């Protein structure tokens, strides 16, 4: 039985912890991904994006001086963003519900809690590849459609109009 072939992916990982970057890179290598760039904070990650053009970004939350959240908002909303549609996985130890909502509202594609495991990372990669959600743009938000988190229980009416 064969599985997803990730080897052509270009991944940017952003974490101020050298240890976590090493572990992420090692896991990704194990999955067949060799094209990986690293950054230690949000600013450097944004510049890295401009140079490297990743297919996927994995970022930590807490990385002074620029947080992962600021970085995501800049990628999604910034006029100078090289790719506002890039899938972004937020990897963090901050897993409280309000934090998850905050990350979602910044435009994160998926959330991955620390401690990190090879299994959970693999699952997130598959989820991101299989994620067919459209992007939504309104006055305050640009990012993956957030309504899917309500799942099939969502009973509200369809208010959005398709503009393009």
């Amino acid at each position, binding site marked *: *039985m*064969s*599985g*997803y*072939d*990730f*080897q*052509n*992916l270009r991944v940017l990982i952003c974490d101020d*912890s*050298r*240890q*976590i970057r*090493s*572990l992420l890179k*090692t*896991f*990704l*290598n*194990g*999955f*067949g991904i060799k094209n990986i760039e690293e950054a230690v904070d949000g600013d450097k990650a944004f510049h890295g994006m401009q140079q490297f053009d990743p*297919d*996927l970004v994995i970022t930590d939350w*807490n990385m002074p001086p620029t947080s992962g959240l600021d970085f995501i908002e800049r990628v999604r909303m910034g006029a100078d963003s090289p790719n506002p*549609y890039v*899938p972004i996985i937020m990897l*963090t*130890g901050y897993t409280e519900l309000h934090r998850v909502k905050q990350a979602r509202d910044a435009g994160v594609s998926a959330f991955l809690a*620390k*401690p*990190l*495991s*090879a*299994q959970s*990372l*693999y699952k997130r990669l*598959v989820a*991101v*590849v*299989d994620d*067919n959600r*459209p*992007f*939504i*743009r*309104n*006055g*305050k938000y640009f990012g993956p*459609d957030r309504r899917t988190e309500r799942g099939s229980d969502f009973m509200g009416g369809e*208010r*959005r*109009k*398709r*503009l*393009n």
Partner: protein
Amino acid sequence: MADTSIIRPPRHISRKVPKSGGPSPEQAIMLALNAAEELTDEYQGWAVDDLRDLWQKFEKLSSDRAVTKAEITEMFDIAHEIRGQGGSFGFDLISAIADSLCKFIEGRRQFNAGVLDVIKVHILAMRAVFHQQLKGDQGALSEQLTELLQALRNKVDLKTNYGS
């Protein structure tokens, strides 16, 4: 209400990831875990540095003076880092103890002798885990230790809050 547009990302990540042709999920995860094994040894060196930092910060605290917000933040950040890394590198118990420590010091204002003792117990417990090489889940030990630490935290909090 602001107009909302629904947009299909122009180049979806799935275009670069064939759903077959790669290793099976089990193989991919096994490859990743094997590759990460060497890092576990390196991690212990890094963790010793983190614990040393934490101990040094702890030694500067005193129940005779007001502890500054910066000091609490510094300790919390180190403990939070350890929490995220321990389990990631196979030391689940380290993450559990660091998690308990984070819960105990986050937002804390009073640092009396009892509080300092609880912090000390956490740091010493983490040292012992490394010393004994207690990797993995550790089952009953993990449960008992977590309960014990919680009981300690509760006891000190009760005394601190109600002076009993």
